[in-house]
């Protein structure tokens, strides 16, 4: 019992520390880190980038010679903060609309439920995939701020319809409790019922859904990354002129995976290092879900 609550505190705190470290790194140390110098192997031959994992570079280097561990640290803040805010806004909007839908007349409710069925069934990735055209058309002259905003809005709202239906069902079930009937008879308003009676009961459930939404948006980011849709847009990142590699501008993890998916044959560590970071993050979130659920 004690261990459980420790872990539940430990995981968010360590994620917070990671984000803080990521910010400190970018503000304080980023300029000091140099591109790894040339290394020679045992026979004295000069090796070219990317280097495999070694003692100097625990996770190896990428094609430009940057240390992958530092890149992951740098990208952590974008990745974590982005999915966190996507999950949070999804939950809040879903909760608000779900509560509204619960108190609608039955005919409207049935209609909305039927109308949203395709939105709920078709995976979020396919919805965003259909909108891919837009991400490539948005100009990024302003440092990609407009693009990030549009991406945030779209990624948030593709997840909302299923949450609206889910929460409306949860509220519906919650309304069946007897103490709510009693509260009604004592003259409570619908707003009072939702805020005072429904939300506290469903708090654990909401936390779980929130964590699940974060995982879902992480996976959505990887899928988009494979299609060269990066948060914050693309940046020219090729070492030589004859090959065209588009890098993720912000350096978030999903972009790191996406941009190097075809490197898997020549330098698997470029894909596997951010992949490991991803899996670790998902394992942490899943652990929290399991602990809350029990």
């Amino acid at each position, binding site marked *: 019992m004690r261990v459980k609550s420790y872990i539940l505190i430990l995981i968010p705190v360590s994620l917070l520390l990671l984000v803080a470290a990521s910010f400190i790194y970018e503000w304080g140390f980023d300029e000091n880190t140099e591109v790894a110098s040339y290394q020679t192997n045992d026979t004295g031959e000069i090796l070219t980038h990317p280097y495999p994992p070694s003692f100097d570079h625990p996770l190896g280097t990428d094609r430009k010679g940057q240390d992958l561990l530092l890149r992951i640290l740098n990208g952590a803040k974008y990745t974590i903060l982005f999915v966190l805010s996507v999950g949070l806004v999804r939950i809040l909007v879903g909760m608000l609309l779900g509560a509204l839908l619960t108190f609608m007349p039955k005919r409207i409710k049935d209609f909305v439920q039927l*109308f949203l069925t395709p939105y709920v069934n078709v995976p979020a990735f396919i919805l965003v995939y259909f909108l*891919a*055209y*837009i991400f490539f058309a948005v100009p990024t002259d302003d440092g990609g701020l407009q693009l990030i905003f549009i991406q945030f809005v779209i990624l948030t709202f593709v997840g909302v319809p299923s949450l609206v239906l889910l929460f409306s069902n949860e509220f519906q079930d919650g309304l069946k409790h007897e103490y709510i009937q009693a509260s009604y008879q004592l003259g409570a308003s619908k707003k009072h019922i939702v805020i005072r009676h429904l939300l506290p009961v469903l708090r654990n459930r909401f936390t779980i859904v929130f964590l699940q939404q974060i995982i879902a948006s992480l996976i959505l980011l990887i899928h988009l990354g494979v299609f060269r849709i990066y948060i914050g847009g693309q940046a020219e990142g090729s070492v030589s002129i004859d090959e065209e590699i588009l890098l993720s501008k912000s350096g978030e993890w999903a972009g790191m995976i996406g941009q190097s998916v075809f490197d898997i044959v020549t330098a698997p560590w470029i894909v596997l290092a951010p992949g490991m970071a991803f899996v670790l993050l*998902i394992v942490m979130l899943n652990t929290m879900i399991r602990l809350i659920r029990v």
Partner: protein
Amino acid sequence: MSFILKTIVILISICSIASLPYLVGSFNAAGDSFGVYPIEYIKEIGTTLIGLFNFYILEETTFDGVQINFDYLLEAYQYSMSLLMIALFISFTAVLVMLYGYHFLSGRMKKAVNWLLVLLDCIPDVLLIVLFQLGVIYLYQTTGFKLFQLYGIGDPVYLLPIICLSLTPTILLLKMSLTIKDEESEKLYVDFAYAKGVTRSNVFLVHMLRNMMLSITNHFSLIYWMMLSSLIIIEYLFVIQGFTLILYKVNESTLLAVAILLFLIPYLIMNWLFNKLHRRLVIDEG
């Protein structure tokens, strides 16, 4: 609501998905701009809905230099869907076989298997596919044994995409099935069958499997849609000229609406089939 009314609402809803690009951007000769355009969006939904009814005479659109007409779409659709269906079938069969094996494990091993699945479930499908490719290449490098043809330039490839496509659903379906299986094992009739002297294998094959089938197939709709997004990734990674790749960067609402409808067809058939199966297996016996 009547059936016809329901169909119309669903059709409008599908058209509204397909027209979504028009809600957030306006594209014309004067240039692209972004914002919220509700009026143009509603207009586009109407156009899409009308376009849906005469899609087969739609003027041919080009995409990446490839002419897209109805025949081409149909061919690509057949190929993509056969990949998906075979993968679904393979993972279903694999899950059943593994479930049979799981039935004979000791309690400790069962726990270990469950933990392993929880961990595997944390790996995103893109990484699983990449890891699998890495494994195949490693096998080739060390033993010179060429297991699959890797990329789909030229002849359509089937084997590797299908295996990659069936990885994630197998893990997910197995994880769900194990929970169902563990719940089923608690039931009284299982103990009763053992007490009567029915062999362990027969208890599973004759009694439990039949009762569990419905709960397992219930998850198929979720898995079908999930596989669809994996299919998009796989067609891209393996350079397959499939159905979903045509939809990439396409700015043609009618085409997208038709695509969603085509995605729905296997889903509806599957649902209908399992409903029938359920009636035969459970209700008729009464």
